[in-house]
């Protein structure tokens, strides 16, 4: 079902199957509104703790208390986002699921950035030369070597400096996109678009070099 063009009003949402009563209370004043906000915070904290626990392996230097503080911060930031964007909820999922994703996002971003906080992000384009050591391909080595050279040449000549920087850092260096966004003063959506455009240019270059199958 396509999304409606305008935000539905509360009375229309009340009839949607995924809408819990407490979601409607979030938009009211007084004790009911406060109870709904407390319920929301509990759900967000549960989701944030769930995410931090899943990703704790990348934060082995943090104590249990510090990990919980990270989850608390994520839940608080998620609550602000949820309340600011209540009008975006269209009842296409349960409100609980809709709210969860904000806490998971905030927690995941905080974990990634914390894990990379003291790590240098190398934005040296020359690092794509490491592609030469990616190992033999599944076919014969000559064909694979030619493909690698076409890719290296594409990275060298078909991309803008910024595209090269982001593609190499994100794919070859394994830098999380949220960490890159922070270091480059950008955001995930903008950097992914840049990455997407870089991949499209690279595929076109490699296809023109005699490997049209990369577009299959």
């Amino acid at each position, binding site marked *: 079902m396509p999304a409606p063009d305008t935000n539905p009003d509360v009375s229309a949402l009340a009839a949607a199957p995924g809408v819990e009563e407490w979601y409607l209370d979030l938009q009211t004043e007084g004790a009911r509104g406060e109870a709904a906000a407390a319920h929301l915070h509990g759900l967000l904290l549960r989701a944030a703790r769930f995410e931090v626990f899943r990703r704790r392996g990348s934060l082995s230097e943090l104590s249990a208390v510090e990990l919980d503080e990270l989850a608390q911060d994520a839940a608080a930031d998620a609550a602000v986002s949820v309340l600011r964007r209540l009008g975006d909820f269209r009842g296409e999922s349960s409100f609980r699921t809709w709210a969860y994703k904000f806490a998971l996002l905030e927690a995941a971003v905080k974990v990634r950035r914390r894990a990379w906080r003291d790590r240098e992000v190398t934005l040296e384009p020359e690092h794509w030369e490491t592609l030469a050591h990616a190992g033999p391909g599944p076919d014969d080595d000559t064909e694979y070597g030619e493909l690698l050279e076409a890719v290296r040449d594409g990275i060298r000549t078909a991309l803008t400096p910024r595209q090269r920087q982001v593609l190499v850092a994100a794919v070859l260096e394994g830098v999380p996109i*949220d960490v890159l966004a922070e270091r480059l003063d950008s955001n995930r959506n903008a950097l992914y678009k840049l990455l997407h455009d870089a991949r499209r240019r690279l595929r076109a270059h490699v296809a023109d070099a005699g490997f049209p199958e990369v577009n299959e």
Partner: protein
Amino acid sequence: MTGRDLDPTLKRLLGSGEPEIGCDECFAQLDRYVELELAGAPADELVPGLRAHLVGCPACAEEHESLRALLELDSVS
């Protein structure tokens, strides 16, 4: 050598070339998509481009896995 036979590093460099949505649209649709998946509905048909995005974007893929896992946990607790 076909696109499907490429090694993982080259696949990540080149991407799939399939039509895909961006990170913001993925976030907007993620709750609906995961609930459709868990209900056994054809999520990829109903939310086109999201699966291809998850293949190309490790961050959104992690959050998709987490939301799915959290809802699965809710369903048994």
